[in-house]
Each structure stands twice: as C-alpha cells, then as structure tokens.
C-alpha cells in the first residue's frame, strides 16, 4: 500500500465523486456558521426553495458583531443587531443549533467548536471564515470558504474542490522559556511568506509540535491562512484524545472506542511524501513581534525595524517603506523601543483558557502602564466562566486590564472595540493589515505573554529576560 499523509487519508475518505479533471465533490462532516458570512447563503436557499441537507451537522453562533460589554443591554448598532437577529431567525427556520448572545456556550466560532467536542479528528470541517484552519489542530481537514460555498454546503453537505498540494513544516527542538506556539507560527510565516502556503495544506510535524498542548496547536493551525495555506493540521495523538474525552459532543462508550481506534490510524505513514518540506529549529525562535502591515513582516523582539535603504529588491523596498510609513516607525529602531497605546488579549488565535492563565501569571502583582489601555476578551462564555472560577479575572482587573464578554472584538473591530487612527496596539490576534483593528490603527502581533509585558512596561520587552 502506498504510504499516505494525514491529509491524503482524510481527503480520500471524503471523496463522493470526481470529475475527469480531478475536481472533487468532497463530503463535509461539520459546518460552523456565524452571522457575517451566512445571511446571503440562507437567502439563496430560500430563493431557490432549498433546505439544508443535514441541519444536525451545523452549529451557529454570533461572534464578529457582538458587544463585549454588558450583554443585558441592547446592541447599540442597529445594523449589527439586525445581522445577529437574522442569524437567529435563519437557524430557527432551518433547524440549525444556535448558541445565542446570552448563552454561556457562545463565543468565537473557532473556540467553541473544540470546546464542545464538535471538532473531531479525521473530519472535514468548514466555515465561512478563513481561520477555520484552527480545527486542523485535531487532525481534521478544516478550511475557510466563501458565502456561496456556505450555501453549497448547507444545500448539499458537499463542496466542489481541487485537491491541494501538501507541505510538511517540521519544527524540531525545545522552545526558549516563555516562547509559545504564537512565536512558532509567526516565525514560520516570516520564513515562508504570506503566500508561501498558497495552494497547499500544511502538516506541522516534529518534536516541538508534539510537545505543544492542544491549545498551542490550535494557535499554530489558526494562522496557517496567514502563511497562505487554507488548512494546517497536526496528527492526532494522546494529547488530542485526552483533550476530546468527555466533551459534550464527543462520542461515548463503544462509539468512543471505535472512534479512537480510527483516529490512531490517521497519522502520516512512514515514508509518505509531501510536495514541499520546510524545516525550522525551535531554539532559533525568539519572541516574535510584527513591525509591518502583513503578518510576514515580523522579527524577534531582540531585533530592529528593517531599513528599506539597505534592500536591493525594489518591490520589497517599496512595500517596506510603505508599511513603515503607515506604522510610523523609524528604520533601524530597536523593536523594544516601540511604545504602545493599547493591548488586546483575545481572538480565535489566543483567547483560550491556557492563554488567559499564562497572561494572568505575567500580570499578577504588576500594573498596566499609565497611558496604556488594556483589555482581555475571553474566547467563549465557558472560557470566561472557567477563568473567573480560577480567579484570573481578579488578577487582570487588579493589574488594570479590562475584563470583557466573549467575542471576536478588536481582532477585526466589527463591534464597538476599535482602535482610533494613529493608536498603536500590541495584539494577540492574527492580522496586522492596514485598518484591521480600526481605520488608521497600528497593530503589532505578539503572543499573550509578550502582550502582557508590553502592557505593563508601555513598550515591547524581551520576556525571556523580563522579571
């Protein structure tokens, strides 16, 4: 038998039929739905007189637009309110499970899937959201789709897809103390570039990846799309199975045993070939900070802002120049000298309980710098509840951080949590595009530990040497 990769096994198991040119009708096991990319899909179904093929395979939640302040109040923005109401109405009309704004299970769509055990190894999982790659941490094939494809999946439980290529990204060795999955993925994007993974599904392998917790693996896979890959995956192992066991939607009893047996068969076979291989050493990865307007514009905290004048490539020089102008940074200045105004700890990248525990451990007994405004937005109502049971909310509040309700919040600033023009933010989210967190806002992507340290010192610090 031909040695197969994790991706090959899942893909082959989901082929319903194939066209002569290889275009494949791929079966979709699970579908996550949120308020921003679904209304036109439901409208399309209605106009065509179609109904969802398997409403029981979908889970819907409002996350992008929801306020992170008092949920008892009505949403101030009527347009946001209407979009959320539309999702609720559509789910009621089409029989789709919906976690509403005042449901403890509500949260960022990519946080609640794994939390509920909705996300399982070997599955194909889609959502009208590019960070669906997060779910690949469980050894699932998970990727973002557009709204027309959301409609396609609702109507047929399938998607028309061309088989992507495979890329192995192997990370070996031990990470420096206080370095995390966020630093690993930012370093990877720095190495392969924001289009390096275009056309590929990435499988992350190696001892560093194996040593990551499930939540770390989610952070890693989450940002695969920032490297251009629609999906990133990690083969399921003991950590995966331990994480899933006992979650509400996980199988139980004999079904559990049967599922675990199947999951153990998913790992890439020895000798299987990838279309591309990239290797990194964990020891070389410093805490990462983005300095520009693309996630690939990143360097270690011990580095400097690049100087466009030293670049020979004309296009790279122009792009760097433009990014530095937008970011209002001086060429050559040390990253540690960058002063910040705001700190955002949250998003589908870094708002799970481990992220909050780590952030709280760095904040404990210290206080946010005078001119810095810092907020913590848990990834879900259940993460928030857990954090409060552990007293993390008190630590954050005593340290001067705001403690908010769950949602996407300032990752993309569709709700009221927005950077003002010219404000500079240390953010644990995933995109530093121009205007992403608010028109004219300046975003530096970092890990939760780096974000806390920056909040307290008012500028970036090398957390490896920070007391």
């Amino acid at each position, binding site marked *: 038998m031909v040695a197969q990769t994790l991706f090959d096994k899942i893909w082959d198991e989901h082929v*319903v039929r194939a*066209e*002569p*040119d290889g*275009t494949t*009708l791929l*079966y979709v096991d699970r579908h996550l739905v949120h308020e921003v*990319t679904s*209304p*036109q899909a439901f*409208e399309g179904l209605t106009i065509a007189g*179609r109904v969802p*093929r398997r409403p*029981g395979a979908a*889970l819907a939640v409002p996350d*992008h*637009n929801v306020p992170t302040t008092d949920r008892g109040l009505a949403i101030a*923005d009527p*347009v*946001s309110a*209407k*979009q959320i109401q*539309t999702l609720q109405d559509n789910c009621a009309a089409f*029989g789709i*499970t919906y976690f509403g704004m005042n449901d403890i299970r509500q949260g960022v769509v990519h946080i609640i899937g794994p939390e509920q055990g*909705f996300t399982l190894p070997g599955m194909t999982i889609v959502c*009208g*959201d*590019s960070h669906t790659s997060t779910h690949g941490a469980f050894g699932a094939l998970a990727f*973002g*789709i*557009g*709204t*027309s*494809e959301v409609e*396609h999946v609702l109507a*047929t*439980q399938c998607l028309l897809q061309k088989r992507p290529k495979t890329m192995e990204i192997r990370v070996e060795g031990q990470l420096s103390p206080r370095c995390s999955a966020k630093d690993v993925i930012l370093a990877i994007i720095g190495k392969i570039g*924001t*289009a390096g993974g*275009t056309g590929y599904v990435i499988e992350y392998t190696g001892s560093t990846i194996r040593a990551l917790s499930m939540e770390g693996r989610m952070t890693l896979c989450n940002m695969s799309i920032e490297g*251009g890959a*629609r999906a990133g995956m990690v083969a399921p192992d003991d950590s995966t199975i331990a994480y899933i066991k006992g*979650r*509400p*939607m996980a199988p139980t009893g004999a*079904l559990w045993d*049967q*599922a675990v047996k*199947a999951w153990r068969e998913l790992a890439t076979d020895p000798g299987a070939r990838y279309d591309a291989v990239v290797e990194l050493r964990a020891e070389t990865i410093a805490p990462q900070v983005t300095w520009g307007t693309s996630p690939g514009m990143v360097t270690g905290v011990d580095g400097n802002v690049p100087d466009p004048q030293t670049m020979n490539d004309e296009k790279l020089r122009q*792009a760097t120049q433009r990014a530095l102008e937008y970011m209002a940074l001086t060429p050559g200045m040390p990253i540690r000298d960058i002063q910040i105004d705001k700190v955002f700890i949250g998003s589908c990248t870094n708002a799970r309980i481990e992220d909050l525990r780590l952030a709280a451990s760095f904040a404990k007994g210290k206080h946010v710098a005078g001119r810095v405004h810092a907020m913590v937005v848990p990834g879900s109502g259940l993460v928030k509840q857990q954090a409060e049971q552990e007293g993390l909310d008190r630590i954050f509040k005593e340290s001067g951080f705001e403690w908010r309700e769950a949602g996407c919040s300032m990752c*993309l*600033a*569709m709700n009221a949590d927005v950077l003002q023009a010219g404000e500079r933010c240390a953010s644990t989210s995933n*995109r530093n595009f*121009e*205007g*992403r967190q608010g*028109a*004219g806002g300046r975003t530096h992507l970092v890990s939760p530990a780096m974000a806390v340290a920056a909040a307290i010192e008012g500028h970036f610090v090398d957390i490896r040497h920070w007391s």
Partner: protein
Amino acid sequence: MDAFTTLTGMVAPLDRPNVDTDQIIPKQFLKTIKRTGLREGLFYDWRRRKDGSQDPTFFLNQPRYQQATILLARDNFGCGSSREHAPWALLDQGFRCILAPSFADIFYNNCFQNGMLPVVLKGSEIQALFESVGAHDGYQLTVDLAAQRVLTPEGTAYHFEIDPFRKDCLYRGLDAIGLTLQHTDQIAQYEQRRRTQSPWLFQDVASTAGPA
C-alpha cells in the same frame, strides 16, 4: 450566475502586492445581509485621505478608470479574510475579470462563484500590461475564456491556465449547487456507507450539545 465568455473592456491598474480583503472591503461594510450595493465600500480607506476627502491619486478616483471592467493587480491578490463581500464589491464596481501573477486561494474560488474570472499571468506579462495601461488612456484588453487568452491591442496574446471543470461552469454560467444536486443519489450512498463505518461522524449536534 452570469456566464463569462469573452470580455473586452478597459483596464484599471492597482499597483500593490498582497492586497488583502480587509482593504478591498473594510469590516463596517460586512454588516449587510445583502450581496448588492457593496461598491460604496470598495477600497474605502484607500479612496480617502486622512481628512475624509476623496484622494484624487487613487486609481479608482481617476475618471480614466471609472468604466474599467478588468482589474490589473499584483501578487497574492485577495489574501486574508474569506469574505465574499470582496468579489461582490469588485463586481458591483463593474469588474468581471482580474489579472494578477497570483491570487490567494479562497478569494480565487470566490470569484468563480460570482461569474468573475481571475486570470493568472506570468510576472513579466503583468509587468508589461502595467506599462501599457500607464502609457495609454482607455487601454483595453480582450479576455477570451474559450481560447484561454488575453489579447492586447498591440496583437500580443497571453495564454492562461484554468481547470476544465471551472472553465465549463463559468462559460455556461452554471449554478454549482444545481450541479451537485444532480448527484444526490451518490451523496446518499456515501452517507450510508460512512454512517456504517464511522457512526460517530453522524451524531446530531442539537442533541449532543453541552448544557446552556
């Protein structure tokens, strides 16, 4: 979906690499529950200066590009968010075709769902087109899907690749969902087999969700 056969139209150049979908259509325009009327949000932040006035140097604010139906772009066009609002906004502006050396995967797929043709040409060919568009007011190209060619007024023909299945769907303006629904029997057979082999995949979300 509108069919795409041959398009002859004016070309507008956007000379920046890595144009992300947050730039094509910023978040505040994603609150709509409609597919139409998104032109207003297209490149919203780039169209305006800091004081809110229109920036006359931005390409879409220049009269010479108002009627363009073909967008000329650089590498990794459409990266970032999966928002289909990006192709919807470009279509609402009048663009049916985008030429670039490379596209981000999700954006590329989304174009085909809306009767739009994303064309990948070589970097050198795109560079030559940027120079021609800059040099000639009202520069037009013809994009011939059947022949998989972009024709210049100077008589040059650039060949492009496209998956045969996508090409056929676009050329005939086929509804992808309608096509898939023709295979409902095969989908049902697949489900039956999988349900026997891997029954946990078919647990109902509603009945297994955790307590509210």
